[in-house]
């Protein structure tokens, strides 16, 4: 007979401190600080840092616009139309109706930022939920959700916005709703594939054997595992959202004049492009650098999120 019994009575029972421990990696204060590591890594990336600072300043400017300019962005002095950049009292000049450009830009940033951030936030939330449910529960529910989202995925954004505006009229609401709808399918896809990667892991099975409901498993166990890829992906959508929103406004589907908004300003200054090109591209310049800042920051986020 080949089987050799292990010594049952000969092995001494190790007490708590006597366990043969293999090394444990220890942080300075003995705790794991995932968030701190992330911020530390992000701050080492110079480009991302510059972008983050720019965006923070932009947000501050838009919030405190009243304090930063005494001009009314809605009312202009017709005698002071199309003043060039650097004119006394008007750093960025004036537009075709004599309104101060700097005031128009920072008041306009409010709508542009809202039109970029709000749809991404809401679209990510809804998309994540749909993606997790599809990925974990699967089956018919997954098929239904994914096929419905495919319909929206296939729709060009502009077409959807025009159709929407034709029914409910143009304005900020239209842009917000359309962009949110457009953000949902890609986020849902990312969430679903990330969920499927971990849905069959043994720790999820352990959660099932504990008696946890599907909702508890999705909320308590799954979500934290897919948060990172969703966060990285959504950050790339911000720049896109800003461009889309500006584009839709440019086409006249956004807010109505005289409300300042970068996309619409670009449109109204179109006619002056041969007369005063520098003023005409000011809103375009801000759209460009802001969406670039979002994109470069999201690259930095992705790099900083890389799991060790």
């Amino acid at each position, binding site marked *: 007979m080949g089987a050799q019994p292990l010594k049952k009575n000969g092995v001494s029972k190790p007490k708590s401190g006597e366990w*043969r421990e293999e090394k444990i990696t220890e942080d300075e204060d003995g705790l*794991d600080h995932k968030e701190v590591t992330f911020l530390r890594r992000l701050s080492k990336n110079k480009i991302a840092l510059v972008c983050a600072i720019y965006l923070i300043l932009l947000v501050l400017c838009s919030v405190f616009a009243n304090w930063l300019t005494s001009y009314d962005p809605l009312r202009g002095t017709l005698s002071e139309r199309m003043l060039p950049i650097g004119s006394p009292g008007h750093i960025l000049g004036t537009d075709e109706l004599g309104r101060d450009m700097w005031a128009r830009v920072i008041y306009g940033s409010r709508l542009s930022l809202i039109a970029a951030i709000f749809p991404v936030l809401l679209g990510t939330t809804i998309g994540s939920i749909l993606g997790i449910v599809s990925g974990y529960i699967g089956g018919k529910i997954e098929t239904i959700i994914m096929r419905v989202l495919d319909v929206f995925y296939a729709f060009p954004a502009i077409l959807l916005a025009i159709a929407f505006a034709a029914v409910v009229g143009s304005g900020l609401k239209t842009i917000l709703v359309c962009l949110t709808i457009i953000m949902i399918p890609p986020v849902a896809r990312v969430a679903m594939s990330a969920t499927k990667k971990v849905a069959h892991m043994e720790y999820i099975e352990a959660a099932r054997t*504990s008696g946890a409901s599907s909702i508890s498993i999705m909320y308590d166990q799954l979500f934290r595992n897919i948060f990172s890829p969703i966060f990285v992906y959504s950050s790339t959508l911000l720049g896109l959202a800003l461009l889309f929103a500006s584009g839709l406004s440019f086409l006249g589907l956004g807010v109505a004049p005289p409300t300042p908004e970068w996309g619409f300003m670009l449109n109204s200054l179109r006619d002056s492009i041969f007369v005063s090109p520098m003023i005409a591209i000011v809103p375009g310049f801000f759209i460009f650098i802001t969406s670039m800042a979002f994109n470069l920051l999201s690259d930095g986020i992705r790099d900083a999120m890389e799991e060790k």
Partner: protein
Amino acid sequence: MPRKILEVKNLSKNFRIGRGLLKKQQQTLQAVTNGSFIVYENKTLGVVGESGCGKSTTGRLIMRLEEADEGEIIFNDQNILGLPNKTMKLMRKNMQMIFQDPYASLNPHMTILESVEYPLKVHGINSTDRKAKSIEMLEMVGISKKLSGKYPNSFSGGQRQRVSIARALVLNPQFIVADEPVSALDKSIQAQVLNLLEDLKENFSLSMMFISHDLNVIEYVSDYVMVMYLGKIVEYGPVDDIFSNPLHPYTQALIKSSPSMKRGEKSSIYVIKGELPSPINPPSGCRFRTRCPHVFDKCSQQEPKLMSVNGEHQISCFLHGN
């Protein structure tokens, strides 16, 4: 007569495999066929067999991670198959599982304290109580309190398994299914974890179903042993009976082919002849007949049934009764 904590009757599970919408391309994998056995209170049933014999599937069927196609699973005198979800949730407090892979059985984004607390959270225990109970369980498996805020990637395989054990015991279950809990660990760590399980089994009056392919481990931990082959139970009995007097040719071959650690004993490597048939198309009659040194005509014509030959010793073979 010891109490039966778990009685399984005629348990079967088939998996449909193969792609394609055409029914032709689908095949049936007979993972577990007509299995019946008993686990007694405070005793450990060791389940042993080669990879793919259905032992893990049996454990998962009992935990209802897979749904059985046929049969009854009677736990604490209640058939748990077909129970409504609410009742099943309460039953789950009494039966828990330990998994094989220590690197996949803990959520990498939860601290080990959160992982151990989770079953308590599911059953509505408040935050202070569950934290206290979890720390107590972790100390019992030899993980000190100051490590409880760390994530699994800070721990070795042996430590992770101990955390998994703490999680399995935190609800004070009566019955544990341990699916190859030490197979992924170094031999030296295996002994520590096995001894821990022995101690906990005594302290908590646990009944256990211990699945393993390692005969040495099975002999060490089990009170009863069940040998499985290709989805069927071929032999069952008290551990001493099985190891001192194995009756089924497969059991005999398993024991003979197990490497010996005894010095001086010439280790002749005994290899069971033939190859493991596919569970999609198991041999007719007795499933072991293609590799059995004692095969005769009846073996291909009829399927042997698991029958008692000597007290609690049962065997499924035409050589002994049937």
